[in-house]
């Protein structure tokens, strides 16, 4: 669920294939996610405050990758995380500034945090917008 409650992302199965479903609330209207086409979603869809960013784990062959779809810019970011991590879960902070992943490394499950503030623009609630910061509210389709 996005921080403002307007968007809900879930994993569904369509004809035996996993897919990400993004819906606007309360209407339930489905929103297309073109950047994720061709990827196999695995787990943990996680939305930022206004639903600009959708982070999730995808399966690519034997590997799991963390990706972030930036709906405002229509871009998909493949996150470069340290090698050797078997990603299990992911959580994106609502403002998009941090990411937590649970990953197995050397047989042990561990939570690690990553700072995304130098990488992604923040996605803040309108009242928190900083003067001079890039406008992000309302950019999402």
């Amino acid at each position, binding site marked *: 669920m996005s921080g403002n409650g307007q968007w*809900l992302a*879930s994993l569904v199965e369509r004809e035996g294939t996993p897919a990400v479903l993004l819906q606007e609330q309360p209407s339930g209207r489905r929103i297309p996610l073109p950047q994720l086409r061709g990827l196999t979603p695995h787990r943990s869809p996680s939305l930022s405050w206004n639903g600009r960013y959708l982070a999730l784990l995808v399966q690519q062959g034997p590997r799991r990758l963390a990706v972030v779809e930036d709906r405002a810019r229509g871009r998909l970011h493949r*996150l470069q995380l340290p090698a050797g991590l078997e990603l299990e*879960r992911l959580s994106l902070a609502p403002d998009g500034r941090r990411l937590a992943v649970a990953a197995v490394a050397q047989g042990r499950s561990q939570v690690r*945090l*990553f*700072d995304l503030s130098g990488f992604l623009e923040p996605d803040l609630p309108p009242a928190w917008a900083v003067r001079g910061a890039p406008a992000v509210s309302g950019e999402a389709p």
Partner: protein
Amino acid sequence: MTLGRAHVAGMAAGLAALLSGCLGPGPMPMQGLNRSLAEQGSQGEPSLSGRWLALIANRQGRDRVELVDVERQRPVPLPGLNRPDALPLSVSVSADGSRLAVVRQREGRTELVLHRRTVMSSEPIRMEPEGVPRRATLRADGREIAVEVSRGGLVQVDLIAVP
């Protein structure tokens, strides 16, 4: 005029970053906090919101919900939440850190509880119609929970408003 190969590569990288909407090189590990988490045993099920990280950690063979203040890089006590007869499965925290939604197993049942830190108490949230909660996510203001519920072999998502 000719441009050096390194110069062209730098321009290309800058242009790519500009076009991709990225501000910088990529995710930066939060080394201090990660080191501190690594020293504390195994963990999973992270939930980030505001300055708070909630997770399930294994301490001396027991799973328990923990809350970490990411800004201060220190754990915060959760009196009234962890019980010796309960096994937490999933946790989600509100942006102000005052509320946690926890799916846990207790007395052979799986239940969803909303824990309010201000009053140090956990209130069970009933599934209607009846179902087995599997995972819960709190809205940032803590006033609504999205719950994955298993009902008759189907997994559905319920939205539950909480006062």
